[in-house]
């Protein structure tokens, strides 16, 4: 009797798991199929799943619609964002993790509340500011704006990484003759590296996915999502799907590489 009940529970459990996975995976699988399907198959109503595939959609998107430039722009912006937000954020998070000083809680609160603040709306005044600063429609300008979006996340995530490395390792190094700075670079940094790499990927995705600020701040030098919003939407459907494919790829790769850090990292950045 009880055994039967257990078996039924198990079946229900797996059925639910399969349904949830299908709900997430099916649309992704289908966008991949659509990105590579020949348009005739895609538009053929009688053919549910296309059978003939081509690289033509991707080729047209990248080289005839010249989206390879916006893709490069996106990559450049994301890398610059990582560089800026890490250069600024690491010292700050290290300071929070290792020092006790008046004002520390205030600063933490500021960072925490900024994470909740709809920073994207700052795109509007920034666009006007950039005109005066000569930053409008530049990759650097977008990257600087993205860095301000990413900075609270970078500080919080790297803070928790530094906190998770016992200060005793550093202190031991200092007892045995290193300065605090040397101890940081020779002991703490190498230990933090995997986590920092995951945090960098996380930052990359934040910038890579951001569209509101990027499209407000640029005109000619658009990032990929910003350009999709304007140009690609007027293109035939298969190119939209090719564009979606290119947008999704880094995200999927990120999930795969940093899967071990995913729950904690999102947990930290959101809680």
């Amino acid at each position, binding site marked *: 009797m009880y055994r039967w009940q257990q078996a039924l529970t198990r079946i229900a459990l797996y059925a639910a798991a399969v349904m949830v996975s299908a709900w997430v995976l099916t649309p*992704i699988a289908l966008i991949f199929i659509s990105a590579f399907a020949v348009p005739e198959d895609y538009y053929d109503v009688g053919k549910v799943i296309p059978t003939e595939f081509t690289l033509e959609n991707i080729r047209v998107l990248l080289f005839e619609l010249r989206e390879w430039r916006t893709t490069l722009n996106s990559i450049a912006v994301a890398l610059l964002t990582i560089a800026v937000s890490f250069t600024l954020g690491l010292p700050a998070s290290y300071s929070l993790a290792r020092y006790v000083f008046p004002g520390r809680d205030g600063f933490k609160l500021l960072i925490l509340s900024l994470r*909740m603040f709809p920073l994207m709306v700052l795109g509007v005044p920034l666009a006007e500011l950039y005109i005066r600063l000569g930053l409008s429609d530049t990759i650097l300008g977008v990257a600087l704006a993205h860095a301000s979006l990413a900075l609270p996340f970078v500080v919080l995530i790297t803070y928790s990484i530094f906190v998770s490395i016992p200060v005793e390792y550093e202190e031991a190094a200092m007892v045995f003759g290193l300065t605090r700075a040397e101890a940081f670079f020779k002991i703490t940094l190498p230990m933090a590296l995997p986590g920092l790499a995951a945090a960098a990927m996380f930052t990359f995705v934040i910038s890579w996915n951001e569209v509101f600020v990027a499209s407000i701040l640029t005109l000619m030098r658009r990032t990929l999502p910003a350009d999709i919003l304007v140009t690609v939407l007027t293109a035939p459907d298969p190119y939209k799907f090719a564009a979606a494919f290119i947008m999704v790829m880094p995200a999927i790769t990120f999930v795969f590489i940093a899967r071990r850090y*995913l729950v904690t990292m999102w947990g930290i950045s959101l809680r």
Partner: protein
Amino acid sequence: MGVKPPSSNFSKLIPYLLLLPTLMYLLFFVGYPIVYAVKLAFTSESGSLTLSNFRSLTSDMYFWEALKYTFLLAGVIIPLQAALALGVSLLLYRGFKGANLCLYVFLIPLTISDVAAALIWYNMLTGSGYLNKVLLKLGLISQPIHFFGYAYRSMEAVAIVVTEVWRATAIVFVILFAGLQMIGRDYIEAADVFGASTWQKIRYVILPMLKPSFQSAIIIRTLFAMQVFAVVWILAGRDIPVLAGEAYYWQSDVRNPHIAACYALLVAVISIALGWMYLKLFKPRYLEEGR
């Protein structure tokens, strides 16, 4: 040599010096723009102080529509996400072979942008999309269901809801799941031992203990919902106006930064007000006293 005396001014300054770059940066890229946005919203093209921006805002039909739809979408999407996320977290918390794989799968949408998500569901739902093809093939419909175009606004809204639920439920899920994992197994096993059924365990132990996580998930999701933009813009354009979309429209298409700044400020003010309200309204009683 040795440790410097605590009066050493420089060593006292170190933590502040480390914070300084971040602080300056945020001041310039967050603080200054906020002030500047206020200035834009309250000045006219000529630079004189005015409330005319807000007057033209409130007389614009799109403004009220945007306000309505932003809240309406949030009101429909968030309960769906909360229910789905709660279900999946309980499912994964229960544990089974392959639960980890299922976890990663469910996290994938976290890293997919709103732009890509919109295109992914556009692909599903267009006239020649998979949903229509399958339904036609099965003979359940004879004409494709139209999801897009001004004439099908309500269907556009459905498409937006589906896309947002697909894309952003994972955010709610991550917070709930992390919260569930913080509940010690002992608490749940104790309920087992003392005679609770599965449903009673959820009702009397898991849900009350999950309440703080549940609330923060809802707060964060609500704040994000106030910023909803790309999914709506791609799937419905201005057929279904939303606040962030209007900001974008006035800035990029009309090139009126004053009105755009009004929208931007409004989103900010609503977010702050909602965040504050949530924090005031829900605070688990058993955490308040003592400690």
